[in-house]
């Protein structure tokens, strides 16, 4: 088992820089050994190509991005299908499923997202992964 992870969804990345309270939560978790992860596909939603990306770019510049290889992408697909079957609603987005798969691969940790409903559906079967707003 690897150490717990902190997975940042699109809306949470810039808040590492802009929100003091969130920054302090992340600081506390990272100092206790949790590993920060930004799945690369999240950038498709987090980045606009404008100057307003500066805080997100600051965080991405330090944390880097985690690649999504084929096994992880397949796991994302399975989580997405399971979430659709159990909740019986529209499927979560593919990017949300990739975020969930990165967290699931670690087995423990937290996903910070501004839109927790779909990620909770995706990670419902994994009690050691929390889904919270920043």
């Amino acid at each position: 088992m690897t150490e717990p992870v902190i997975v940042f969804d699109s809306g949470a990345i810039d808040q590492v820089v802009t929100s003091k309270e969130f920054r302090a939560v992340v600081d506390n978790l990272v100092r206790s050994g949790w590993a920060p992860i930004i799945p690369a596909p999240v950038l498709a939603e987090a980045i606009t190509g404008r100057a307003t990306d500066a805080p997100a770019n600051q965080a991405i510049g330090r944390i880097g991005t985690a690649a999504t290889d084929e096994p992880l992408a397949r796991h994302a697909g399975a989580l997405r299908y399971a979430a659709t079957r159990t909740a019986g609603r529209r499927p979560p987005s593919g990017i949300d499923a990739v975020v969930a798969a990165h967290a699931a691969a670690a087995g423990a940790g937290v996903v910070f997202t501004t839109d927790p409903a779909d990620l909770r559906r995706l990670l419902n079967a994994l009690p050691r992964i929390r889904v919270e707003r920043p």
Partner: protein
Amino acid sequence: MATQKVSVTLEAEAIERARHVAGPRGLSSYLDAALQEKLERDERRHALLSLLDDLETTDPTPAEVRDRASKRAARLRAAVET
């Protein structure tokens, strides 16, 4: 890439499990991949802490905010590290 032979002491049971799952890749390749992953995680962690330290220097977090954050982090750890 240059390689180096080293002598390390590891848990016997973990070595046997690693041998079992490593298969034809071999134990050295398996341990090398695990080491690379761990290094990447630790380097990301240190880089983020360096950014957070820089931000804290220029724009300090008030004590009451830090206390709230500390309680929230403790709650998360309790929920996850069981």
